[in-house]
């Protein structure tokens, strides 16, 4: 892993982006990494576009500021592409991951990133979520897809962390569904 990975999350309030940012940070901690996860706080209402941030590093993280040049951008809701510049500040070797049925090529064209070195990845996280969790909660599958698209983690540490943290709060059925959604997204993400 590179020394510092910076992830920016785009979602609508209520989709669980803050929880996802937190789960990624916690998984990193279990791998003895240093991490930060913070939402960008504002007048937050269900459905309003929001941002959250995760930093992961193998050395202590000292900085406290927004992430302007992320290694990875995760978009939980593809309708945001029309209203938010999700590619803003992305590093040339970075990756943009979107919850969508579209192919990475179609996504690249939509983002206006033809000819760019930025990688574009797509995953139908909502579809996976509807099949596994029986509702549209794209946040946990997006973690699986992020792990694969960035090479940040293997799927196992995510699954073991989910078991540990969800085990306290949810039924086995829900835990299993989340694990299934993460594992499927890890396998199914396509990177172009």
């Amino acid at each position: 892993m590179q020394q510092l990975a910076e992830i920016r999350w785009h979602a609508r309030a209520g989709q669980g982006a803050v929880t996802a940012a937190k789960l990624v940070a916690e998984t990193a901690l279990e791998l003895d990494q240093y991490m930060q996860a913070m939402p960008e706080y504002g007048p937050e209402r269900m459905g309003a576009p929001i941002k959250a941030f995760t930093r992961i590093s193998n050395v202590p993280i000292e900085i406290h500021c927004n992430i302007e040049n992320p290694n990875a951008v995760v978009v939980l809701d593809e309708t945001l592409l029309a209203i938010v510049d999700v590619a803003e500040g992305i590093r040339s070797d970075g990756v943009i991951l979107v919850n969508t049925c579209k192919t990475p090529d179609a996504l690249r064209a939509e983002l206006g990133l033809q000819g760019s070195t930025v990688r574009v990845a797509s995953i139908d996280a909502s579809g996976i979520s509807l099949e596994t969790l029986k509702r549209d909660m794209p946040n946990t599958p997006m973690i699986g897809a992020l792990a694969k698209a960035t090479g940040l983690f293997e799927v196992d540490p995510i699954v073991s962390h989910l078991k540990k943290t969800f085990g306290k709060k949810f039924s086995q059925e829900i835990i299993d569904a989340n694990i299934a959604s993460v594992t499927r997204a890890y396998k199914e993400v396509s990177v172009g």
Partner: protein
Amino acid sequence: MPTQKTIAATGNAVVAEALRQCSPDVMAAYPITPQTTIVEEFAGFVAKGRVHTEYVTTESEHSAMSACIGASAAGARVVTATSSQGLALMWEELHIASGMRLPIVMANANRALSAPINIHCDHSDIMGARDTGWIILFAETAQEAYDNTLMSMRIAENPEVLLPVMTCLDGFITTHSIDRVEIMDDESVADFVGEYTPVNALLDLENPVSHGNFAGLGGPFFEFKKAQREAIERSRKVITDVAAEYSVLSGRPFGMVETWGMEDADVAVVVIGSTAGNARHVARQLRADGVKAGVVKVRCFRPFPFAEIAEALSGVKAVAVLDRAESFGAEGGPLFLEVRSALYDSSERIPVVNYIYGLGGSDVRLELIETVFKDLSDIAAGEEAPAGLVYLGSR
């Protein structure tokens, strides 16, 4: 030695955890963004029976601090937490708590004061309360917020001190970010913090006392204030001693002033709170480019570490003081006034530049800190220092 576990948690969560581990008798509080999750979490501990604290819900911060004062005078170990307008609403009680020498511990989530309304970080709330007689500690990280809270209890209740202590953490930046934090086991904290033996407790029926007395014209009011000054001066040694003990226990040192690269620095930034990390990060990069950059972090603002600041800055060619609060019409921000005063007795005549930054949560981008160090390098090379204070990164 204590067992420590490493957790991922927000600054507010670990402050609530530290307060729980101190087993206070009473918490009286009113919620306010971005402090809310401290009192929410603590109320949860009370509800689950994880701490045996009388939790008093009040209708305002004015009432919250009043209840804290009453409970503390009664002889209880008392904690609370607030932020911004809440701290402002407590203002008259803050003076009463320190004047009555009540060792209340309060967390303050640093947030801007209205108007215009804003819920994000700056230090104008606490700087407005800097002369209320409270000991004031600042945290850079969630870890420091946890550590400061535990140490605060010992410092406040020390018989040589008996003053209230505020532990400050930056709103949202520290309160709401999930960070890597080491937490001690309950038993070790209980041993470290110890039992509280109140002085002049109203509930000590064997030794009745009156609190809240009058000391008018010709009376000893002046002497009481002098006694308060003497107590906060004595707290310097107590803070250092408590921190030394805590660092043996936790492995984490505490300095009223903490320095980075100051052994041979030509240019230095003096800063409080979460921005200290940004400054160190930039200084480290500049070092790689051959710039002798240093950072001085002030972790204890009251009592102010004059001698330590003067010593840390000795030999430096140019200094920038970063203030996350205004003191409108003054020579500079609150920290600048203290730092330049600390340097007055030095014969070195070090140029000191004041930057106001990050008001209302305005993001402290690394480029901003880079421009500060660039200015300092120019001044160190003989260029004239900017006249008056600089609004860092403002339009």
